[in-house]
């Protein structure tokens, strides 16, 4: 995969500054392309309601993907995010339901649920990070393992069925997903806040710099007095925190958790990160790219719902094709070829 970057290195210079800008803009242009496609297919695409739906949906995967950007930039991978989300949702629901009796279905109950979510997210992330760094086990294996573990736990908690949030609490909790501030849905605001925080952390702090360094060359990082294991563990903790935030806005939407919650979210999150231009091998990460990647993925799903020209059976194929084409276009290599 690294070939992509390497190949470009020599040509980059020759095509000058414009090409570099284009590369950073790539994901945005691809997104604009998708929007044009959507509008062409159905006028309703550009309606406020639909756009707000798209962005609100992108928030889940987007927030998780912001965390994944850290993990991947530092050279790791986390396959457990989807089941972690399911597990945290489940635990939140169980605890909040339990608290109704003592605390009533008020704001306190919801707040305690939120606190629990954050604690669990950080804890689960720390487990992923510590087991892989201290145990010296590939992150792929560790998180594949915890993926099974968290999913089992939620199945167990739900006794094979569905955990369902008390309907009184739903009323209190509901605005977190369905509410808006100045017309902007709250999940979108949270997504934006997480993205800004992620951007600042990754690009403007020593911690972020260290993530880049570790992903780029761990040995160099170690020789630069960086606590490699600690930083790597922290990236998983950030990932866990992001999962917990995503969960906090997820729970009021559907008010339930089961073993099928969050299935394949890990794949979507990683895809959003890679589409956004972060390198899977580590050493280079781009939060804004990730945000755009997440919105792109959601938009593709939305566009498929705009038309019934395509058989439902082929949804996956169209989705796959669009992803490949979008990434191809945004890489901008085709432009170079053409201009030669």
């Amino acid at each position, binding site marked *: 995969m690294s070939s992509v970057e390497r190949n470009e290195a020599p040509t980059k210079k020759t095509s000058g500054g414009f090409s570099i800008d284009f590369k950073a803009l790539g994901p945005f242009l691809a997104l604009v392309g998708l929007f044009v496609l959507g509008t062409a297919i159905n006028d309703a695409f550009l309606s406020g309601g639909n756009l707000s739906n798209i962005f609100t949906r992108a928030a889940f995967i987007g927030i998780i993907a912001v965390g994944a950007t850290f993990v991947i930039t530092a050279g790791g991978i986390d396959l457990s995010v989807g089941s972690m989300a399911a597990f945290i949702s489940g635990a939140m629901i169980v605890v909040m339901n339990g608290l109704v009796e003592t605390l009533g279905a008020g704001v306190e109950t919801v707040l305690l649920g939120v606190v629990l979510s954050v604690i669990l997210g950080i804890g689960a992330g720390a487990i992923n990070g510590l087991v892989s760094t201290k145990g010296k086990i590939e992150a792929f294996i560790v998180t594949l393992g915890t993926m099974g573990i968290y999913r089992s736990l939620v199945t167990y908690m739900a006794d094979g069925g569905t955990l369902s949030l008390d309907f009184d609490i739903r009323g209190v909790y509901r605005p977190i997903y369905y509410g808006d501030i100045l017309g902007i849905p709250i999940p979108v605001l949270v997504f934006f806040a997480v993205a800004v925080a992620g951007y600042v952390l990754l690009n403007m702090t*020593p911690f972020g710099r260290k993530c880049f*360094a570790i992903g*780029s*060359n761990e040995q*160099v990082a170690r*020789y630069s007095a960086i606590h490699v294991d600690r930083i790597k563990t922290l990236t998983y903790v950030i990932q866990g925190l992001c999962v917990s935030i995503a969960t906090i806005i997820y729970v009021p939407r559907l008010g339930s958790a089961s073993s099928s919650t969050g299935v394949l979210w890990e794949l979507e999150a990683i895809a959003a990160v890679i589409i956004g231009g972060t390198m899977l091998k580590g050493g280079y990460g781009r939060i804004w790219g990730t945000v755009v990647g997440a919105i792109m993925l959601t938009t593709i799903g939305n566009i498929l719902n705009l038309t019934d020209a395509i058989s439902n059976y082929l949804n996956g194929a169209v989705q796959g094709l669009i992803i490949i084409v979008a990434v191809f276009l945004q890489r901008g290599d085709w432009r170079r070829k053409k201009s030669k």
Partner: protein
Amino acid sequence: MTDAAVHAVDPDQEGRVRLSGRQICKSFGSAQVLFDVSIDLHAGEVHALLGENGAGKSTLVKILSGYHQPTSGELILDQAPVSFVDSEVGEGHGVILIHQELNLAEQLTVEENIFLGREIKRGWFLDKATMRAQAQELLDQLQCDVDPRARIRDLAVSDRQMVEIAKALSKKADILILDEPTAVLTGREVEILFDQIRRLREQGVAILYISHKLDEIKAIADRVTVLRDGRHITTETVAELEKDDMARLMVGRDIKQMFPDRVPDHSAEIVLSVRDVCVDGQVRDASFDLRRGEVLGFAGIVGAGRTALMEAIIGLRERSSGRIERNGAPVKINSLQDAKKCGIAYLTKDRKGSGLLLNMDMRPNLTLLALEKFGRVFIDRKAEEAALETAIEAFDIRAADRKSKVGDFSGGNQQKLLLAKVMETDPDIVIIDEPTRGIDIGTKSEIYHFIGDLTDRGKSVILLSSEMPEMLGLSDRIAVMAGGRITGILMGDGRNEHEIMRHATGISGKQGASVHE
């Protein structure tokens, strides 16, 4: 250039022109690094290429061997214009380049690397026995004591370079280009390499040789071409040039004094004291003291354990025993962070593997080690830029484009950046492992004076170097290691090549450390 034309008339003559570059220009993006450079390589002759860091030597030889395409100009092989669209074509015509930067697949073995891309086959299968035998033969020829089955990542840098040389030799070159092959080699290995070069010259191979070590040029080269700022300055026979002339032609000015004047103060207080440090299998019972304002050299043949000892002191390697005292008080150093807190910094000799992030630009590289200096919460980019400005000035780092990846820098400029990176922490004690590897003579002298300034300001330096003049010219005392032990600490007139060799090879006969005045 006219003499080349004379040679060209008589192709059967021994010194006939094999490969020449004519009016070669090369630009990377907007930065032009070569301007109308021409060069002729003659069969049976060693042609040296001289120039400061970033003068364009590596770029030129990459063009001559097909790794880069010239922006303009042409290549002529045996009187016919050729175009090497890639290195494969170049090699097909017998042009072999040993890169300045090691080009080995680290996870593969020595033998696998030597035959990479042109494996010997029996039928469809690899003929491992033959390859191993041939690899062994090549290594024996180079008197290189590594196992063909060893993985490259487990080898010392000098051994890796010998593997590179073995790989090139196995390719049966007609035209052999060596880009600073000796930068990481020790004296003995350099001699072995020279024997090989002489043998090839006898056989009529045309050789282009790049080095910053002028002694070597005098010893091995027949003619020399000097580049400065991407331009051809002169081509002359080596016999006609003195070392000082070469240096002047390269740098464009006189180098007055190579080494700083130093007055060692053997009574200054001890700032670092190392006692009985052992590292499993690599270092045994090493003890020494370092004084304020002192340069303490560490000499020894490759694998003597100098690097292992230093990495053990600063917590990069696990010590099996030993104590470390800083200003008389015992300190716990179990990681590089601890060492940093104690004011100790370390400059690695493996700049590619553990020194620099090659895919990033200068700024993050420069500040990585001293990151907290640039802000604990947010990184202060302005401060970073300012530091970069200062470093570029102080270390004379020449990059065509400040934003380009460090991996694209010339070798010497990478080394300068690495030095700048380590100095960013403003340490009291600097351990420098091969500080001038690949550095041109002008800059070398600047670095030596820089080290002199450091000690004048009361800092202390531990110098690990395989360059004898550097060791003798800079160190106040010289500790010699052999087989993981410190076999002697030389002071005053005891600091001479003979004594060092005697201790380094272990013929001094004594077990403990001996002190010579």
